[in-house]
Every structure is written in structure tokens, then in C-alpha cells.
């Protein structure tokens, strides 16, 4: 990849396509020393969950599942807004019954240790949800197929159930969107996702080992006895949201609610998830973290503007301010207010008019046929956040490739500016 005047990227088309070999990024290796975990794409060759090609979802399926996740985020916010206003409308009644948090398809995986002796589990890491859970033996009702052995509390000397009368149990309401229940004095959690995936089981305490130097006793997690859904072979989910039951909150004494990650440039490379404030690079620029009133578990960000090929788009500040925005590790494609997306698409298409267009791919409506090119030049895209922070998007974050003949602008629009 090369840059011309910082207004374009010139990239090899082949580099947009998946590789079958795992190439670890140098900085992602051997980070056990500094509270870091390796991050891999669930369906890529670096993942232990790597599946047979036939069972990996297609890009169209991934984008469809991404749309389900986004709808769930929106309906959760809408539901909470409705509750805050103490109004029950017909529209609210049509929302999914329990959409506390959300699973998508473009998920990244980290491996953590649970129990004594420690058992390694590959969990989906998710800044858009709060509680951490894994499938547990004896899977009283049902467990889906996972790659790691299913965690067995009976074989751990540090496992204990949480009682129904505990504060932790009552906190489940805000973390999952569901009231906990009780079974023989043991607290029972339930979490349901926007695509009807769910996990139900005992809320429990256990020793959590992130790295050899980062071990937490009495970590609260869900020990799932009835689990179904599109978890793709992962053993469960690592909740990195802002609720007090999330991992950052439970480890706040040590890490001060600070964590960072880097998502790899492709499915065939690795990134990291790091806890605490060590080794944050000097190139990091900070903007304000905001709170969405209807969804306090989400990490709110303030988008101010977008530039394409060095040209700042003419979008009224009220367009972004009116809807608000969040950052989410589990949503694949950035969603923008229609007014903003329309301006982005128009400018991008204008600067890409030398290339033949291709059929839309699901929610992606600006696609190109690069089959006759070995390299292409595309405009840079930058996001502007509050406090003057400008974030250039990597070339592989601008395009989403479904083969050389269908390479698409990797942004989509919400249905309404007010969302």
C-alpha cells in the first residue's frame, strides 16, 4: 500500500482477499508479559475455531447478521427510551422481547483461562455487551458445538454459585436486560441476543486468568446450561461494556477501567487486547467518551465530520449531534445517518468514477469490479471526532471484498437520521 499526498491509497487488489495462512503481526506476539491477549478473527486461519470452508458464513450472511445486530442495538435504545419516557406504544410492543445485547458475525476471539486448574476458553470479545459467560457442564438443557472442551465447574476448586439474595445477582437486570431467577438459592442469569441466540445458566464466581500475571479471583460470570445460537464454535462471550458486571468494571482496581485493542488488518493476521495503561503508544489521540442516555453500557463517541480524499464533506453538525454515536467491536460495518452516508457515497463514487461498478452486496450499495486491475487507487477516508481528533481509516477498513469482482465501500446507512 502506498499513499499519494495522503489523499489516496494505492493497494494491491489481491491484498483485499483472504489468505489461508496465519501471519502474526510482530507486535501481537508473546505479549503475556504486559497484560495482553492475542486477538484473532473467528473465521480466519489464526483462530483455533477456524472451520471448514463450507461452514464459514458467506459475506452476504455476515452482513445480514450484522444488520440484525444493528437493529438490536437500535431497538434496545428505543426500548429504553420508551421506558424512560414511561410510555408504552404500539411500536415498542413490536420490538424484540429481550434484546439485552447482541451477537454478530464479524467477531474477534481472545483466549482466557478459567478455573483451577485453568482451562483455556476462546471467547468472543465484545465492547457492546456486559456479562462474560461460557458454556458449562453438564449442559442441563443444551449446549451448542464448541471447539474447546466445555468448562466443567465440578472439576474446578475455585468455582462457586452466586446466591439469589446477593447484590451481584440483582445487578443482572441492568447487565442483561432480564430479571434473574432463582434455582435452589442459586442465581440464574439469562441473556438473549437480537438474532434469538441466548444463554441461560448459573451466575457464578470463578478464578479468571487473563495472563500469568493477571489473575482475578471471584470473577463473576455466567455458567451457561442452556445455550443456543450463532456463536461459531466460540466457548462464549467476553463482555467489555460499561456495566458494573463487565470485565473492565470487575478488574477496575488493577486496570482502572482502561483497556485497548488493535483489530488486525485481515482475517489471517493477529491483533491484541491489552488491559491497563501500559504501553499506550504516543500516536494515540484522545477524544471524549460520551454516554448514550438510553444505553449506558455502550461507549459513546462524538463524530464531528468525515473527509474523503482530503475533502471535508458538507454535513451539518446537527446530523451527527442529533443521533449520537457509539463504537462497537461487534458491529462489522459502520452505520451512518442517511444524510451523512449520502454525502460520503456521493464523494467516494465521484473519486472512483474510473472504475466499473458492480452489483450491491447486501447492505453495501457502492461496489466495484476490480477483476481487471492488479492495483487500485482509492480515496482516503478520515473521521473527525470531538477535541479535534482526526482518525484516518485503514485502506482495508474502507473496502469490503467479496472477491475481485465485488469490492464494496464498507459503510452503510441507518434508516433514519434520528436513529
Amino acid at each position, binding site marked *: 500500500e502506498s499513499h499519494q499526498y495522503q489523499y489516496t491509497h494505492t493497494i494491491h487488489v489481491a491484498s483485499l482477499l483472504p489468505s489461508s495462512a496465519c501471519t502474526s*503481526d*510482530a*507486535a501481537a506476539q508473546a505479549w503475556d508479559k504486559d497484560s495482553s491477549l492475542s486477538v484473532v478473527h473467528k473465521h480466519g486461519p489464526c483462530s483455533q475455531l477456524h472451520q471448514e470452508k463450507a461452514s464459514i458464513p458467506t459475506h452476504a450472511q455476515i452482513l445480514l447478521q450484522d444488520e440484525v445486530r444493528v437493529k438490536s442495538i437500535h431497538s434496545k435504545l428505543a426500548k429504553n427510551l420508551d421506558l424512560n419516557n414511561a410510555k408504552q406504544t404500539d411500536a415498542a410492543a413490536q420490538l424484540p422481547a429481550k434484546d439485552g445485547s447482541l451477537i454478530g458475525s*464479524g467477531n474477534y476471539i481472545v483466549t482466557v483461562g478459567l478455573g483451577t486448574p485453568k482451562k483455556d476458553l476462546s471467547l468472543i470479545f465484545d*465492547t457492546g455487551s456486559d456479562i462474560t459467560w461460557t458454556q458449562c457442564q453438564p449442559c442441563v438443557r443444551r449446549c451448542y458445538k464448541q471447539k474447546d472442551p466445555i468448562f466443567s465447574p465440578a472439576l474446578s476448586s475455585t468455582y462457586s454459585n452466586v446466591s439469589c439474595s446477593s447484590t451481584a445477582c440483582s445487578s443482572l437486570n441492568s447487565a442483561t436486560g432480564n430479571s434473574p431467577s432463582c434455582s435452589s438459592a442459586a442465581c440464574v442469569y439469562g441473556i438473549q441476543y437480537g438474532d434469538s441466540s441466548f444463554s441461560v445458566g448459573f451466575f457464578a464466581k470463578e478464578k479468571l486468568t487473563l495472563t500469568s500475571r493477571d489473575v482475578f479471583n471471584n470473577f463473576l460470570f455466567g455458567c451457561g446450561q442452556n445455550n443456543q445460537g450463532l456463536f461459531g464454535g466460540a466457548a462464549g462471550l467476553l463482555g467489555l461494556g460499561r456495566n458494573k458486571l463487565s470485565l*473492565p468494571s470487575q478488574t*477496575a482496581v488493577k486496570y*482502572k*477501567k*482502561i*483497556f*485497548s*485493542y*488493535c*483489530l*488486525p*488488518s485481515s482475517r489471517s*493476521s*493477529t*491483533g*491484541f487486547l491489552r488491559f491497563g*495503561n501500559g504501553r*499506550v*503508544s504516543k*500516536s*494515540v*489521540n*484522545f*477524544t*471524549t*467518551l460520551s454516554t*448514550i442516555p438510553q444505553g449506558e453500557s455502550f461507549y*459513546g*463517541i462524538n*463524530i464531528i465530520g468525515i473527509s474523503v480524499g482530503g475533502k471535508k464533506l458538507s454535513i451539518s453538525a446537527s446530523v*451527527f449531534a442529533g*443521533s*449520537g*454515536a*457509539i*463504537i*462497537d467491536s461487534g458491529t*462489522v*460495518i*459502520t*452505520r*451512518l*445517518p442517511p444524510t*451523512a452516508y449520502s454525502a460520503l457515497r456521493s464523494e467516494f463514487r465521484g473519486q472512483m468514477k474510473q472504475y466499473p461498478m458492480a452489483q450491491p452486496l447486501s447492505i453495501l450499495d457502492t461496489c466495484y469490479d476490480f477483476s481487471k486491475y492488479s492495483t487500485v487507487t482509492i480515496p482516503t477516508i478520515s*473521521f473527525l*471526532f470531538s477535541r479535534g*481528533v482526526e482518525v*484516518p*481509516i*485503514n485502506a*482495508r*477498513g474502507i473496502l*469490503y471484498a467479496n472477491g475481485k469482482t465485488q469490492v464494496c465501500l*464498507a459503510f452503510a446507512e*441507518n434508516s433514519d437520521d434520528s436513529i
Partner: protein
Amino acid sequence: VAIFGNTQQKTLEVVYDGATGRIGFGTAGCT
């Protein structure tokens, strides 16, 4: 809400600082 998704976060170093209410972005974070 608008949602800043994971495709656009690729290779960025994203730093969540829940203590001081900041979020940071660094380029070329994986290298």
C-alpha cells in the same frame, strides 16, 4: 445512533479510558 464498526477500526490502536472518560485512537496500532 451511528455505529463505528470493527471494519473501520482495523489496525487502529483503540484505547478505552473509563476512568477519565476518554477514548483514544492511534494509527498503525498493530505494528
